[in-house]
């Protein structure tokens, strides 16, 4: 049975085509301004990647900020359910998940069978992680992908406020003016985001084995800083971005049975 999960995030759209338990194909593209167009294009690309047509798909579940905009007929589900379903499918023993999306982050606690016990979404002050990192990359004239490694080479610890990304930005700007070394600023930025995520995870007492999802989970600097703060060990799947869409596809299959 072939099902599709599509996660229309605020910054990027992810699609996964699933055949029983095997991922046939997946696609990630930026959502841009028009979520409707982005989801249609993503669907078309993933279908011909998997070498199947739209009719072969038994059912589709869509999730994410733009789930209402999906042009084709699909059931809806919330990001929390999809993340949990996808994450626990990949690592059944995990106690919880942290999803660091472009716009906001989520902490989810699940039981042994992968059902959600508790979850917490970031409050207003902690939103905009994706935009914040991009803005910082531009301000420091650094390629966003390298921010992680550079931050690991920092020598001294500097405090960047973790209250809100706008203050963090103004502090970073003043640090740049004071010619603080770039790697140290990057480490400060990563610590600021990590402590916000740590605060979120603490709100639902997340411990034990945790999976880190979302596009920003690829940033090894952030994961290293988060590991320092959190006692639990963190697993980053190789394609952390598409786990939500995978969960949606799994839900599509369940709802079909």
């Amino acid at each position, binding site marked *: 049975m072939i099902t599709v999960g599509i996660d229309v995030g605020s910054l990027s759209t992810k699609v996964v085509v699933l055949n029983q338990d095997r991922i046939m194909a997946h696609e990630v593209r930026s959502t841009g301004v028009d979520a409707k167009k982005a989801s249609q294009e993503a669907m078309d690309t993933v279908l011909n990647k998997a070498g199947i047509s739209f009719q072969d798909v038994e059912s589709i579940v869509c999730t994410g900020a733009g789930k209402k905009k999906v042009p084709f007929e699909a059931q809806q589900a919330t990001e929390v359910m999809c993340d949990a379903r996808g994450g626990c499918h990949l690592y059944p023993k995990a106690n919880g998940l942290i999803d660091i999306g472009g716009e906001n982050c989520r902490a989810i606690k699940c039981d042994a069978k992968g059902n959600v016990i508790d979850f917490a979404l970031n*409050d207003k*002050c902690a939103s905009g992680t994706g935009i914040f990192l991009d803005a910082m990359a531009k301000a420091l004239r650094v390629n966003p992908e390298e921010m992680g490694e550079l931050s690991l080479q920092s020598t001294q610890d500097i*405090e960047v*406020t*973790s*209250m809100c990304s706008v*203050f963090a930005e*103004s*502090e970073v700007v*003043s640090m740049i003016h004071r010619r603080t070394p770039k790697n140290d600023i990057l480490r400060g930025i990563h610590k600021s985001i990590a*402590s916000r995520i*740590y*605060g979120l995870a*603490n*709100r639902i*007492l997340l411990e034990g084995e945790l999976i880190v999802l979302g596009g920003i989970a690829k940033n090894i600097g952030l994961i290293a800083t988060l590991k320092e703060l959190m006692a639990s060990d963190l697993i980053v799947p190789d394609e952390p971005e598409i786990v939500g869409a995978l969960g949606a596809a799994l839900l599509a299959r369940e709802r079909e049975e």
Partner: protein
Amino acid sequence: MGTIDIMRDIVENPQRIIEDWKSDGKKVVGHRCLYVPEEIIHAAGMLPYPTFGTPEPITKADSYFQPCVCEFIRNLFDLGLDRKFDFLDSLILCNTCDGVRHLKSMWSTYIDSVPCYIINNPQKMYDESGFKFYRHELEMFKGMMEDLSGNKITDESLRKSIELFDETRRLLKELYMLRKRDVPPISGSEALIVSMASMLMPKEKANPLLRQLIDEVKTREIENADGPRILITGSIIDNPALIQLVEDMGGVVVVDDLCSSMKYFWYETKPNPDPMDAIVKFNLERAVCACMHPSQQRFDYLKELAREFKVDGIIYFLIKYCHTFTYESPTYQEKLEEETPTLTLEVDHSLSGLGQLRTRVQAFIEML
């Protein structure tokens, strides 16, 4: 300046005081506010210890308290969770704001290493029925202190403690009065350090040190301080760096009306045959906290200070999410501004937004 450095060392690492005091088996009782009667704790042979916060950012407490609770309380809770207050035999709070009331129940639920108790003080001054109510509450508190310490609190021991604490208050006031001079002999941040150290130290040790400091300061040579004279008021500022910031910007801080300085020692206990009644009247006849009614007396006290110390500008520091003072500040700003330019500034307890603060303070000082 020897004495001030000794005091600065005490403020920066107060553990030594705790170790000395606990070495001969005596107990330490922490408290968070001026309305907790330290004399009763001292009369029971225990050390009253003001739990000043630390400027580190909040970590664990944010998962217990919402971020919209005043940062000073979250900082205390954070230190409690990190077991940094485990040397306390008890923590005493009092009924001054909503945050503190919930700190009591959250502390009792989540921190079992230090028992917590709240004194239910009325919030109305010069009110006979209030004195009666507060007397009952203080009698219960006295009983608790006797059980905790195992010593009986007699009128005699209470009277001696009141005299001892008033001596400290008199000395601190005498020191602060010296700042009326055109060239104040002691800077704002130094004065705050002296006041905080005197609150931390056992009063038996604090008083001689203060006498020695006053003699040194009287003859101290200071080159002219020609900046505008500034009065600082607010709730609890326990970080001299904030006063230092104002002084770096060219302001001469001559008055700091804060819970960690003048609010603690500006008034004295009136002589009274019954020491408990003296403490009741002492607390319910001095308008130092914004939670007390009527607020007219505190407002006149501020205006009087501004005139007495010939002040050019007033800075009103508000700790973010501190409701008690935030409700009052617009009305105060309007009234104070009739005579002296006043600036109300929102401050984080962990002083994270220093950059923005510096611009505002410098602009205010350039304005005077």
